[in-house]
């Protein structure tokens, strides 16, 4: 998957490029709007991360030019401007998503994956990871063929992470996806929920599947 980063802030561009490369993407970086525009026109990128405040040509203009030329690269806008009007403007001009600085890298990664997945495979209904099996339709979880009883929210939480093994989920994303809390709350509800889930899913077993990525969030994966 090829990703283009159009960002004039060198440090931001560097950590984005590094993080994305380490997650298996091939990444190009340009630091102004004109170069960004020609790169998008000449190459076939799967996704571009576009800053709004750019030298020479701003992000809005880059966005509207490529959409006018019918270039269908997915665009994720990255900005420090956080007003509802800006969001609406971005989406109206044809951006696929909008992320406000400061953001967690894990969240950016999650959004990129969602954007690239969009329109492809349907959600997997049966998941197998090591000796854990999840049946999304029957709401059944077994480990080592032993049935594990989960509350509906615990099940949702496990399913969310198990469907994308290896992906890091921040507390904010988990609260949003599982409980529909669309704002950052400073409680440790998610930590408590993960602890309970571990209690049932991981604690009785040698092979741990739920991992804490300290300072970032949680991930589900067989290590």
């Amino acid at each position: 998957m090829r990703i283009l980063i159009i960002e004039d802030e060198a440090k931001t561009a560097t950590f984005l490029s590094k993080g994305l490369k380490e997650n298996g993407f091939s990444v190009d970086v340009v630091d102004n709007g004109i170069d960004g525009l020609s790169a998008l026109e000449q190459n076939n990128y799967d996704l571009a991360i576009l800053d709004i405040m750019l030298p020479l040509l701003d992000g809005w203009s880059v966005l509207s030019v490529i959409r006018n030329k019918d270039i269908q690269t997915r665009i994720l806008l990255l900005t420090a401007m956080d007003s509802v009007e800006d969001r609406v403007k971005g989406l109206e001009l044809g951006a696929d998503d909008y992320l406000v600085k400061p953001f967690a890298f894990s969240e950016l990664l999650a959004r990129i994956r969602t954007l690239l997945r969009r329109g492809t495979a349907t959600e997997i209904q049966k998941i197998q990871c090591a000796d854990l099996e999840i049946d999304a339709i029957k709401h059944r979880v077994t480990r080592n063929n032993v049935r594990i009883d989960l509350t509906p929210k615990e099940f949702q939480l496990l399913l969310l992470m198990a469907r994308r093994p290896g992906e890091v989920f921040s507390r904010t994303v988990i609260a949003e996806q599982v409980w529909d809390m669309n704002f950052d709350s400073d409680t440790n509800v998610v930590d408590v929920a993960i602890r309970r889930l571990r209690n049932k899913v991981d604690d009785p077993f040698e092979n741990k599947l739920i991992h804490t990525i300290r300072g970032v969030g949680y991930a589900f994966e067989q290590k």
Partner: protein
Amino acid sequence: MPLNKNNPPSLQPLAKKLAILYASTTFSVLLIASGLLYWSVLDHLQKEHESLLSAKIVELRHYFKDSSLLGETLYDLIDAEHHHSQATHSSAIHPGIPHHIFLRLYDEQNNLLVESNLPQSIPKNLVFPLVDSQDTQSISIIKVNPESEQLFLLGSAWAVTISDQQSRKVLIQALLQLAPDESLLTDFQRTLTAVLIFGVLASALTGFWVTRQGLRPLRQITKTIHNINAHQLNEQVNSGQWPEEIALLANAFDQMLVRLDQSFARLSQFSADLAHELRTPVNNLMGTAEVALSRKRSSEEYQEILESNIEECQRIARMIDELLFLARAENPKTEITPVLFPIAKEFAVITEFYDMLASDQQVAITYQSNQIELYADPNLLRRVLSNLISNALRYTKAQGIITLTASTSAEQSVSITITDTGEGIDETLLPQIFDRFFRADKSRQREKQGSGLGLAIVKSIMDLHGGQVLISSQLQQGTQVELIFPPKPVYSA
């Protein structure tokens, strides 16, 4: 005044405006008054002339009655009258009024008996009023104004004369040429004009002077206000020596200064608090990074430091997020999109979210909504409830209960109450509880506390809804927060 640069051009000075106003008022009053005066003088003069004419006719009647003279003597009489009037330009009865009276006498068969010499200037076609020949008492007088500039009074009357033991009737036609009376009226007009001009000038000048005097306090107030800046907001404009109207203005201004002073104080307190809030996490970031780099460490150590730094950064990021939310909420242009929904639904969502945390702390969360519907923005309400429950959980010990209830009042407003059985808040701290970065317990560990913005956000969301938030608390008994939402406006669908 450099500040005036962007102002619209100011209107004329008040003193000038008032002076013009005074002058024009005086002008119109004087004009009307002198017009009336002039008209009444004219009227009076005409009445004088009429009475002069009728007096002359009466005089003639009297004369005819007493003596039986007609014919030759009549000429003498008329001539004499003519000359007399021309010579003196005044009559014995009405001294001071110049006049020329011309006479004609007709007999009953309408034959001209005699007439005085009419001057050329008098048109021949003057029509005298008709008089009933039986009536020897009345006199009719009309005023005519033929093409020429001159005015005439025309009088007709029958007189009885006794001649050769025979009574005869004679028609007297008298004509009084009204002289333009130049001297008298012109003098009068001149005086009136002079009075008018002088009056207007005098009132303009006094108006200007009086206004300047009256506005002097305003200039002094302006001077005082010039000395006020953000650092001297306690300067008093109302020194108590102004006239009542100005004192009211000065007083209002002083009150505004007090409010501004408070706002400035709050703003600078907020900036100080913000800097203080940032200082600790930034200090932690700098410190840990610096210490980490001071010597070579194991990768586990580096990892731990980075993890700790990310936590600090997340605190800062959340603070920025919440401050931006507050700033947006305070922007008067911000609008919310309220909908009507059952409160029970939101209660269920929020208690489900906090359920695990609460049972972890052995605190129960219950709710009771009585199937009430609320008109509000559900996302914002969720944030309000989340902040309040998170606070309640923080201060409620094991075995405590957090209760959410909803009720409607007589005015159709909906109130939601969040009650906890926690440690409560000191009553003296309640007024500041919605201030940004306010924390009841300063000694608490930073990590265990929220951002200090939670209740400020609650308040701003309630303000956005046009609602209210009330808080009451008793130490060791618990805290109760009441959210009052206004009823759904009737006009909206």
